[in-house]
């Protein structure tokens, strides 16, 4: 990571408001041309971090560099980043075109050039026909695109997006995800995207930083974070998972042998380096229902929920832990009845021992 210069280099950054610590020693590097997502529940510090990059919040401790330059002393209007605000913050007294051209005007571009560029930006977000409207005359989705065009018009080196899709309805949100990703690939601008919506993060990002309580829990691609969560928080926050307490009998590098409920032993990838009791994460869709003889674990079905594409079995393991299994809906499978005893088989590599 040190070989190529990062677009944004966040070094041990801490933010305190009085006695409250919003960010606690966060370090991460965001590469140029990357679609990087800060993902976490509200209050995890992701928006604070974004606002520090934009220049709206002071850094209490640590350093942020943009393409190698420390930015601590620079006001927001002297940073080569632009922001798409959560509620768009369009200038209500200006037309759509004037909104998009505002940053260009501030940079001193002449009227004819900025008009041409604004037109081009509006074309890119499919709003050419709305250039003369006022923001209040547009729908939420259209306002969102104007905000995007406005932030992209000055050709920032880094675009910051603060939950830009959260105010849109589901259909629009899904369409915008694809569009955002395409836009990022076309423009080659580094996107830093803040969201609490894991699906959004998984579908768009090159890499994701999962944050909680002011700290980065894990950084990785969507696949890494989903399939190899390092701790309980990440496993639980991203997607659905079964967390069961198990006894670790042997640790061997990044693999560990654990005792499953019912007594079977299983060797699985491990994020933990210590023995004792730890949480084992097993995704519900990485299981299959088998005969009791060849099973890793035994369970009693309590309820079957029909989800359309899937069926969800809510079962109880030997020892009493609740366990979910997701089966793809197909005529080929036999659906167990509530009350039935079933055997569960864990796919190879699907179980993962977590650090706390």
């Amino acid at each position, binding site marked *: 990571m040190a070989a190529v210069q990062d677009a944004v280099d966040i070094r041990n950054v801490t933010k305190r408001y009085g006695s409250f610590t919003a960010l606690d020693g966060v370090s991460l590097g965001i590469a140029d041309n990357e679609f990087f997502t800060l993902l976490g529940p509200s209050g995890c510090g992701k928006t604070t971090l974004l606002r520090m990059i934009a220049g709206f919040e002071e850094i209490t401790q640590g350093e942020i560099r943009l393409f190698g330059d420390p930015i601590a002393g620079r006001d927001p*209007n002297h940073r080569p980043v632009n922001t798409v605000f959560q509620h768009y913050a369009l200038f*209500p007294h200006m037309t759509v075109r004037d909104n998009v051209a505002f940053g260009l005007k501030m940079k001193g571009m002449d009227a004819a050039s900025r008009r041409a560029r604004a037109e081009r930006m509006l074309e890119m977000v499919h709003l050419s026909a709305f250039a003369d409207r006022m923001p209040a005359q547009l729908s939420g989705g259209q306002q969102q695109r104007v905000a995007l065009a*406005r*932030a992209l018009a000055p050709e920032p080196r880094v675009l910051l997006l603060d939950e830009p899709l959260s105010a849109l309805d589901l259909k629009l949100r899904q369409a915008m995800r694809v569009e955002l990703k395409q836009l990022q690939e076309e423009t080659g601008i580094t996107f830093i995207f803040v969201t609490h919506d894991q699906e959004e993060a998984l579908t768009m990002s090159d890499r994701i930083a999962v944050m909680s309580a002011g700290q980065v829990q894990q950084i990785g691609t969507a696949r890494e974070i989903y399939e190899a969560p390092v701790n309980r928080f990440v496993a639980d926050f991203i997607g659905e998972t079964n967390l069961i307490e198990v006894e670790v009998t042997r640790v061997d590098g990044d693999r560990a042998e654990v005792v499953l409920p019912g007594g079977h032993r299983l060797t699985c990838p491990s994020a933990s380096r210590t023995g004792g009791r730890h949480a084992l994460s097993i995704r519900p869709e990485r299981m299959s229902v088998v005969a009791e003889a060849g099973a890793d674990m035994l369970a009693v079905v309590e309820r079957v929920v029909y989800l359309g594409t899937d069926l969800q079995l809510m079962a109880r393991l030997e020892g009493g832990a609740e366990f979910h299994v997701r089966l793809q809906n197909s005529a080929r499978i036999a659906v167990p009845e509530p009350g039935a005893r079933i055997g569960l088989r864990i796919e190879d590599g699907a179980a993962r021992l977590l650090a706390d």
Partner: protein
Amino acid sequence: MAGPGTSGGGGGGGWRPLLVPLLMPTWLTIGIFLVLPVALMAVYSFLTKEFRGGVIWDFTLAAYDQFFIDRGLFGDEPPTIEWTYIAIFWRSIWQAGLATLFCLLVGFPTAWFIATRPASQRGVWLFLITIPYWVNLLIRTVSLKYLIRDNGPLNEGLMALGVLDAPVTLVNTNLAVQLGLFYSYLPFMVLPIYAAVERYNFALSEAAADLYASRWVTLREIVIPVVKPGIVAGCILVFVPSLGAFLAPDLLGGAKTFMIGSLIEEQFKGSLGNWPFGAAASMILMTLVLCALMVYARSASQAAGQGAAR
């Protein structure tokens, strides 16, 4: 702001029979307190004056003639333009305009300051702004006169501090009248601007800064245009009563600082009054103010229309 979906009350007919009785109080209030007095004033301005005050019901243009046209002391010289009253009007407009400007220069930062305090503190600041208004305007104006007179606390204090060698005469000057108007109407500037700034979305300022605008440019290009309705309301609320004010010019000013308000007031006082002339001066003042506001409203709506249609 011409937002979509602002259709008027075209809803179901269930409450329609109630419309007239419900609107009655409004109509009565407007009728009794607005239409009737203005109509009365309009009619009186065309009547003949009675010497001990009051009017004789003879229709004449004498009041307007007296206002605009000079026919000499005995009314037998060739008519020329009467400048006396026009000069008083001009001075009034100038004084009121200046008072509005000063109120804006002080009121805007004040309103901004209050609106940007934590919500729990704003009430206290607003309360402090309105406290002087619990005291009658007359008493406050007299107090101000006491404060600024030659041997009053202001001059004495400044002399005691060695800032001044001799007292500065303020009473009976335009400056004193200006001070009185400023003091009387400042809250009318602060309150509407406060209301506008309080609703202001500070994310807009962040967006402007994010798009490379300096603080000064953000203020000029974003903040002021967005809170403009509050500024305009404040300016109207200060300018209009300043124009017709008579307490401040009467008490703090002298003959050279005479304003329309005092002129009109005198016409209705005691046996020296001239009711038709006072009514005519009021009508001229009102027409002037209305025209100014209409011109402003038209230019504002044109500007908004241009913005939407360009």
